């Protein structure tokens, strides 16, 4: 194991400052600082607040990661950093920091794709990825279905959300129901007490002529808000648990149905979940049920690794080093809309 390179990973695409250390497929450190609490009263991530927090947290988070792994900066063999997609100002703090560490430590630097890193992180828990795999990545920032023939070099986008990310829909529905931001955990908790079939909310883009792998959550979000407002106008109590459970069911239903269909259509028998919404208990349960029925092996990292972190970036970096992919050029920057076809740049 010691002969495999030690890879330091940086993640700053949204509100989490993540610094991870990985050797091969072994997770050595996963240090995280978050500005989540500072965004709460705004009901969403404020880019400038996130960027300021990244700068403050950067060096202390690196120190925590090195201490956690029991190594020094001089032991690092390669550095990986999220180059996109994400919030430009936030990405640039991580990119600049990673470039400086790489220059100072004289090690190669890999600018990597955040979405591919969400897939790579599973290797830290479940070993080498089966290729090809299908990946379903759902968070507050993204909702994507990917075909992964070769994680180091070849990832294709099958579909994505045409409006809101799944996590955004959770946040907005939580707001309608008077729950705190981020909305995922409180909706999951409330839904546990509710009836998922109480209200039949719409399933976006599931018609026969709709794009088979694209998602739409805007109509669902609006339908939930209208339903709740109608109840309130009529002076009736809002059955919060039932609304939460029915909304969550609609999201989980669409996501898993499309993921399983993608596997079937492409003859792929491995599905990887990732992103913060993959921590949702109903999504995990329904994915397990439908994958089992379809003969698909489901791989879901632990919730801690599903959300944004530095370990996932280090994991992808480790994979790139092992595959002999060329490091990034010295003029690496950030690309807020980096396409998934660019696993590294």
């Amino acid at each position, binding site marked *: 194991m010691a002969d495999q390179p030690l890879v330091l990973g940086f993640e700053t695409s949204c509100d989490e400052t993540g610094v991870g250390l990985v050797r091969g497929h072994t997770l050595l450190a996963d240090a995280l600082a978050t500005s989540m609490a500072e965004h709460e009263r705004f009901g969403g991530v404020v880019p400038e607040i996130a960027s300021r927090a990244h700068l403050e947290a950067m060096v202390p988070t*690196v120190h925590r990661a090195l201490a956690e792994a029991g190594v020094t900066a001089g032991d690092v063999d390669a550095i990986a950093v999220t180059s996109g997609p994400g919030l430009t100002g936030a990405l640039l703090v991580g990119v600049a920091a990673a470039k400086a560490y790489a220059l100072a430590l004289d090690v190669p630097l890999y600018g990597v794709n955040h979405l591919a890193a969400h897939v790579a992180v599973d290797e830290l828990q479940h070993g080498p990825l089966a290729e090809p795999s299908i990946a379903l990545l759902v968070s507050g920032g993204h909702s994507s279905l990917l075909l992964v023939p070769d994680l180091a070099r070849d990832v294709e986008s099958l579909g994505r959300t045409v409006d809101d990310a799944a996590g955004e829909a959770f946040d907005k529905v939580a707001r309608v129901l008077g729950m705190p931001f981020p909305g995922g955990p409180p909706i999951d908790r409330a839904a546990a007490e509710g009836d998922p079939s109480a209200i039949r909310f719409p399933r976006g883009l599931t018609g026969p002529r709709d794009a088979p792998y694209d998602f739409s959550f805007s109509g669902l*979000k609006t339908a939930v808000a209208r339903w709740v407002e109608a109840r309130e106008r009529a002076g009736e109590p809002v059955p919060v648990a039932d609304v939460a459970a029915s909304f969550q069911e609609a999201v989980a239903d669409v996501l898993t149905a499309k993921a399983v269909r993608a596997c079937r259509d492409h003859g792929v028998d491995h599905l990887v979940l990732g992103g913060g919404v993959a921590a949702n208990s109903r999504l995990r349960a329904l994915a397990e049920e439908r994958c089992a029925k379809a003969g698909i092996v489901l791989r879901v990292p632990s919730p801690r690794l599903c959300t944004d972190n530095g370990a996932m970036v280090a994991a992808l970096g480790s994979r790139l080093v092992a595959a002999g992919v060329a490091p990034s050029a010295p003029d690496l920057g950030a690309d807020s809309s980096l396409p998934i076809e660019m696993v590294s740049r």
Partner: protein
Amino acid sequence: MLVLALDTATPTLVAGLADWSQHGVTQVLAERAVPSGTRHAELLTPAISGVLDDAGLTMGDLDAVVTGLGPGPFTGLRVGVVTAAALADARGLPVFGVCSLDAIGSGARTVVTDARRREIYWATYAADGSRLTGPAVDKPADVTLPEPVVGDPTFAADRLGRSVTPAQVTTAGLLRAAAAQLADPSSAGPLVPLYLRRPDATPPTTIKAVTQA
């Protein structure tokens, strides 16, 4: 003492190497001023490698890092500050932050740079170079700017309605501004950018704006 100096507070990033001594003698060994606009993150580390190559030195030869803390457009400003912090951390070097305006021009003067939104960053200085007022961000009409006015001339005509003598951040200026900290490292302040403005962020005024939005 070999010092690496950086600044990304203006559209021209600066990276320089200088030999500094306690006696106040600074010899600039290499300097690159790169018109980088909003591409500071792309171009800063290549500029640092470039000045090291120009001087025939390596990272291992450095004794300290000095960086401008702004004021300046936030995203670009942070690139320089986090780069300085990370380089210093990786090499175990002291790092000192200075007001970027202090590193523009010399002597009695007013320094102005572009703060966007029809505003300016500015500061005034005495003949011995010490800062008298600022750094501040204001609308030009709200402030009196003592002569001579130096700094970024590109936006001066329409925003100040007057001419500005061109002057930029320099390696020598950054070291001059950092002299007290270099002489007494225990006097170093925290590496916090001079933002001078709060983040743009307005809390939602209505809680249930979902169906209206």
